[in-house]
């Protein structure tokens, strides 16, 4: 089961994702990210500190917005991945294509870079 919530604070949209993102639940992650990008959010933090599992369905959601992120000058940063979840990103090299940070502080610092 996925747990997901979004909060807008000081111009930063934080999307907290917890639980399991698989073929049965990735649609909810997609809905939140789509809503943020199409809603004009320019700074998006994806907090995965309570994410236990991600399959290709979840990776596919992030991949499908890479072009929109670049085209719309959106800064999207993922942080808080546990070792197992980070490993899934690394198998396909997505850690090179998406901005991933270890901590909240590092993620926020990236958003505030000019």
């Amino acid at each position, binding site marked *: *089961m996925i747990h997901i919530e979004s909060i807008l604070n000081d111009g930063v949209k934080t999307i907290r994702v917890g639980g*399991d993102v*698989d*073929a*049965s639940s*990735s649609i909810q992650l*997609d809905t939140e990210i789509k809503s943020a990008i199409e809603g004009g959010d320019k700074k998006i933090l994806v907090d995965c500190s309570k994410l236990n*599992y991600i*399959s*290709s*369905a979840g*990776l*596919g*959601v992030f*991949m*499908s*917005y*890479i*072009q*929109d992120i670049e085209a719309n000058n959106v800064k999207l940063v993922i942080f808080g991945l546990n*070792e*197992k979840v980070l*490993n*899934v990103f690394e*198998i*396909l*090299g*997505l850690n090179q*294509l998406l901005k991933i940070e270890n901590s909240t502080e590092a993620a926020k610092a990236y958003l505030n870079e000019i």
Partner: protein
Amino acid sequence: MKYKYTASCSKDQLKGIRSFVNESLNNHGLSDIDISTLVLAIDEVCANLMIHSHHCNPSHHLDLIINVQTNKGIGFDIIDQGIGFDINSYSEPSVNDLIERKRKGGIGLILVKKIMDDIQFVKINNKNTCKLFKKLCVK
């Protein structure tokens, strides 16, 4: 040592499949990362079969057999009676192609091929078996 699990072809069954694989492999001296990577591969194959071969019909079933072979590795047989799908005949797109086309699907089988050492598809009568093997030093 062999383990067997049967699941209906509904995506809400994937979590149970993952738990089964995790628990079955837990006492064979594997690292957490090795186990989680194998769990991922089996989840991907099962999700693919449920969606594309069975159209998520919960009255259909698939069987998963795990065969832990000491000092050799782990075999996984995923058996179903749906539309046969040979993973080896699937020409997967590149990650860059998928990004350019903004596709959300298509990477599951790339993951499976990267994770597993051997993949075979066997069809006998109406029964399909996807045979996966991972070489690992297991107890």
